[in-house]
């Protein structure tokens, strides 16, 4: 079934080794992975197994020790840092466990930022940000400063910011890790809805077992390797 769709992300013998003093830590060991359009991939595995490192490598922030990463056939580490930045801002929506903000800017301005970075004019970026905030039913937060919001609200705003450029893929690294269970549920439902209704490709890293049944593909990682890869649902 996966072959009907275009490959968004592909890794080829991806390896990453950190050097801490004289110690070598091999965090990723020859990871070969294809993520197809419209998939909702849940990645799980014990803490420290390399999930975040894999995502950081995929989004172009962590140069691999060996192997390659392609997004839609573009080998990203053949690009310059700035070019990878452009690719990231235009084609990837990223959400972390903690959300970071430009503190002096309000929610609307923060959400609009990826579009502005892309080169969009200010008023159009703001209009677009309003639309996204409305879609996620958080337009009431537009004028507030993000740091004054609750954790759940902040993560929704972060999702709005990830969505605004209409990216090829949403990459979420434990987005509910710091949330109470109610907010966590809301967040996950939002992701499921996005995948179902607008066919967005989503990669979600989580260690919450309740979420492992979400989506339609499940990857289990251990010691820097993918040990299980199965489709369901």
């Amino acid at each position, binding site marked *: 079934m996966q072959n009907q769709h275009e490959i968004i992300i592909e890794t080829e013998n991806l390896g990453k080794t950190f050097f801490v003093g004289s110690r070598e830590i091999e965090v990723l060991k020859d990871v070969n992975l294809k993520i197809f359009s419209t998939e909702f991939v849940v990645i799980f595995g014990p803490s420290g197994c390399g999930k975040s490192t894999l995502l950081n490598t995929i989004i172009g922030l962590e140069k691999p020790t060996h192997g390659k990463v392609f997004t839609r056939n573009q080998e990203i580490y053949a690009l310059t840092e*700035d070019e990878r930045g452009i690719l990231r*801002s235009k084609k990837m929506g990223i959400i972390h*466990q903690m959300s*970071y903000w*430009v503190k002096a*800017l309000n929610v609307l*301005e923060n959400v609009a930022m990826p579009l502005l*970075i892309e080169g969009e004019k200010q008023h159009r970026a703001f209009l677009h940000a309003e639309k996204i905030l409305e879609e996620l039913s958080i337009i009431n937060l537009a004028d507030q400063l993000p740091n004054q919001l609750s954790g759940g609200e902040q993560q929704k705003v972060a999702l709005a910011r990830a969505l605004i450029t209409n990216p090829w893929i949403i990459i979420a690294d434990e987005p509910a890790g710091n949330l109470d269970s109610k907010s966590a549920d809301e967040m996950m439902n939002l992701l499921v809805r996005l995948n179902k209704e607008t066919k967005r490709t989503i990669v979600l890293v989580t260690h919450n077992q309740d979420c492992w049944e979400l989506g339609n593909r499940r990857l289990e990682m251990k010691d820097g390797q993918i040990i299980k890869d199965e489709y369901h649902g």
Partner: protein
Amino acid sequence: MDRRFILRIVYKNLRSRKLRTLLTLSGIVIAISAIVFLLSFALGIEKLVTNEVTKGDAFLLLDVGTGNSQLVKLDEKTISEIKDLADVRTVSGIINIGAKAQAKDRTADISFYGTDKQYLSWSGLTLQSGQSLSDNARKTIVINTAYAKLLQLSPQDALGQGIKFDFTIPKELNDLSEEKVVEGQNYVVVGVVQDDSAPKAYTHYQNLIDLGATSYSQLKVEANSKNQIEKVRKQIESTGLKTQYVGDTVSQIEQVFVIFKVVLASFGFVALIVALLGMFNTLTISLLERIKEIALMKMLGMRNKDIKKIFVTEATIFGIAGGLFGLFVGIILSQIANMILNYYATRSGGEPVSVFYYSLKYILIIFAASFLVSFVTGFYPARKATKIDSLEVLRYE
């Protein structure tokens, strides 16, 4: 990235740290206003001095003398030769001899001059009472206030006072080979000029020529226009005479004031450097505080050049705002100082003056310097900001 959004980020950042922004800004304002204050003070003083020197027709006048030369003389022949030069309008001379003056039972050695009305007015001597020298009045003199004081007479009372003189005409100014002494000459005071330096008396030159003087001590030559001065000067000097010109003095004054200005301006620039260090400090602290934000912006794909722009813009805004307010405050403060000064000056009988002078050129230079220097100061934090590794910052919480 949309320039307006960069401005918005900078503006909101500055606003979210009001006190620090204000303190940094006031540092620059203080520095710039100090520079404006000191420099306009230097310019104002220079202006006052130059104006004093170049009062009236001064820029058209050449002083002509013999130097120490025995070969040339300022006699009637020389005068008519100079008068015949194409660009010379008029020539006036002065004969300076020694005199023993006797009046009101008081004997004094004074300087005695034979000259004319024109020369006196060129010399900037203004009448306190009576009248100046006229061409046909014989045996009359104009004395200065210093001599009137010596005689314990007010300028008014001095008029009509008779004075008896013994003259000594030095040999350079007569046709003999020795000095000529003429005794018992009676003169009447017809005018008093303002000059408190040393006792002096002036009579029409014809009186001294009648007594045997044949040469002048000095001439003043008026040129037709300022542009011809150098030409006239060369022509006169080619005959062996020496000339002096206020223009020379003015350029000497200007040279002295260059140093004065540099000294004052460097006080200001020290202040500016301190202010810049303050700004540098502010920018660096704000960089440290914002490491996470910058990491975020990079994570979201912001280009290094845009990140640089944020910091450079922030610094430049300090420079522009500080420059403008600084100019404003500097001008206001110097005007207040001027008013206070004039208040005391006029109370003690002086004329109100402008001690401060603002030149557009300097104002523009100061503003440009404030702008440029802060622009450059923004570069270091800007470059540091681009070196931030977003993963390093965002990875561990």
